[in-house]
């Protein structure tokens, strides 16, 4: 019961694992490129939670710094990714990732 009552590291890790699972699920299954990007954000956030959780329980600041960087990079990535999605839309008139397979060649 202690585990249920006291919020420990495992709770964080569990949350992050769920977030990762949802993120991955979104990335793997969704057809809309926007939703895929959202899945990616979820995965990044899952990683952030992990970093912060370990940082808290290790007592260092490295995890926090990492999380900060990841947030910044995630912002930049979101901008670039949206730009790519817009260009894809311009070319293919669609954002359905399942129909875009020109990387095959």
């Amino acid at each position: 019961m202690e585990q249920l009552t006291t919020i420990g590291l495992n709770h964080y890790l569990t949350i992050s694992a769920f977030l990762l699972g949802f993120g991955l699920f979104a990335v793997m299954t969704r057809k809309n490129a926007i939703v895929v990007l959202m899945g990616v954000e979820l995965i990044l956030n899952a990683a952030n939670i992990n970093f912060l959780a370990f940082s808290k329980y290790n007592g260092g600041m490295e995890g926090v710094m990492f999380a900060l960087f990841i947030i910044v990079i995630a912002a930049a990535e979101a901008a670039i990714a949206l730009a790519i999605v817009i260009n894809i839309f311009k070319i293919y008139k669609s954002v359905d990732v399942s129909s875009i397979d020109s990387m095959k060649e």
Partner: protein
Amino acid sequence: MHSLIQLSIVVLLLPLLSFVILIFFNRRIPRRGDFIGVGILGTAFGISAYIFWTVIVQTYDPAFRIAWDFTWIDLGNVPGVGPLQIKMGVVIDNLTTIMLAMVTLISLLVHLYSTGYMAGDKNYGRYFAFLGIFTFSMLGIVLSDNLFSIYIFWELVGLSSYLLIGFFFEKDSAADAQKKAFLANRVGDIGMWLGILILYSQFHTFSFEQIYANLAAGNFGLSNGWLTAAGILLFMGCVGKSAQFPLHVWLPDAMEGPTPVSALIHAATMVAAGVYFVARIFVMLTPDALHVIAFIGACTAFMAATIAITQNDIKRVLAYSTVSQLGYMVLGLGVGAYSASLFHLVTHAFFKACLFLGSGAIIHAMHHEQDMRWMGGLRKHMPWTFATFTLATLALAGLPLTSGFLSKDAILAGAIGFAKVEGGGIFYLIPVLGFFSAMLTAFYMGRQIWLVFFGESRTHLKPADNHHQAHHAHDSHAAHADDHHTSHGVHEVSWNMRAPLVILAALSVFFVYSPDPLDGAKGWFMKMIPTPATVVGEANPQKGALLSGNVAPHLAGVVQTTEVAPPAVAAEHGVPGEAKGGHIYTDTRQAEIVHAGHAAHYTAIYISSIMVVLGICLALVVYVFRIIDPEKTASAIRPLYLFSLNKWYWDEIYEATFIKGSMLLARMLSWFDSNVVDGIVNGVATLARKFAFVNDGFDRHVVDGMVNFTAFAVNTTGAVLRKLQTGKVQTYVVMLMLVLFGYFVLYFTRLIY
């Protein structure tokens, strides 16, 4: 170096100079350079005549001999052979001197004659060049002092003979004849070379003198049979060159050459070279070898005489007559009548050259008609030719007062003496054949004289169809070809063809050689050329050495050695009045033969005169008085007639045996070649192909298979993997996850176990 040696070398080289000048430059010299040939031969004859004068007339010594040699090739000590030095040298003795003068004289006359006979021929200059090289080689044979150089010149005369027989090489018959002559001579020369090698293997020298000295000293290390074999093998060279049975077949065919060539080469000089060679090796011939030689000579003389009586071609009659006379000479050497044989060589050279040149004049005048059946009545048109031809004919037939009588009688006397000494009945066959041939000679020459010179011209009798063939066959130089074969066109030949006839005919009279018209032995010739003592006979140390293995100490073989003559023979030789009484031979057999031969002199004269008269009477009866019709006689004894007309079928026999045999052998070899050798080659090829086929299969299936399989595997893998590469990011992510998952599974599995 003796001055005579120097002169003789000059004589030897002059004709070579003529050859070199004429063969290269004859087209740039006026008259194609014929005057150069004649002039050079004239000079050579002049020098030879001087040598003759010095040696025979001034010195007059039977034992005269000067020699000079130099080392030509020194091969040092050849392994397996021993010291090998080849020397070249010149020897001048009485025989050489006489031959030198004879060869250059006849060559000069033939050169002179040819300026008339060959005039207008398109290869006129080359003809004189060939005569030059022939004369050079012939003089080389005469002057050689060793077997090696004599062999070289022997082949050279063979070559010149080949070139001159085939001078009209555009005619197939001439081309065939030259090949036949060359091949027949090769057969003989192989034997000669083997004989030379037998002697060389024993003595390591080619020099005649050293070989005889060694033989006399008993240094011959093999059995007597080998010595006999060496003698017979050396004699084979003579058989080929002097056209003896069984290699006589080439000489009659050699008549395809120009007639002056027939006179020079195939009557007077080259064919006599064989006899000359046997005379040079005479002293080393064992009695057995001499028997072989005598029988071959007798067979040749008789056979050729029987053939000559039915031939129609004027030159062929003379050719067979030459073969027959050469048979006499060889017979003479075989029976030991050495001087007589060489005497006959010289006398025959002159009168037969005269006959051939005479026949050439006739052929020339008759516009290249050679068949005696269509001649006749030429006596009035060609008085000079008629007179000289008749004189030479009488000499050939051997009538008294001619040179031929002296020499032929001496040979026959020797043959009778030989038969007496040998004692056996079979040996009487030799003189009997000789006498019978003498009769036949008289007969066929009488026939020839009558057919050619007497009676009416029969030119018009010539069958028309035959006419053209024969005309073309004998149409040697077209410049003189004339379709009118009538006697109206026949006229005496010009002076340059007449002069040689007169000179040669003059040399066929007895007083040139002997003051006594009945006995040649009284003449200078037989005194100057005495029979040399054998080095291998009975009384010689050679035989004792061979039997006992001891080497007898003293050296026999000197011509006039006076020791160890058996008293009986020596006493007989003391009989006064014997021309050869001065010579006493150590060998009893030889001494007896010489003596018996001399005793048989008058017997021989009687028999041979009777035979000659019989022969001439027969010719008169048949052809002049026409008591016996030749046509009817011929048809009455048709098999014999055909036997003679077809030359004893020797050509056919050789055709059936040697030629067919070689063809068969060639076919067998060809079969072997095309089946066995080719079979092996083809078998190897087939095997290689089979191997290549297997290899190809291996390559195609295994190696290519591996390569193709790799390609296929890569292809297949690629095809599978291409399916994975969808180009959709989500698929990749799924795969990534799966791999990650797989890794975790693996990791945890390891962790657990």
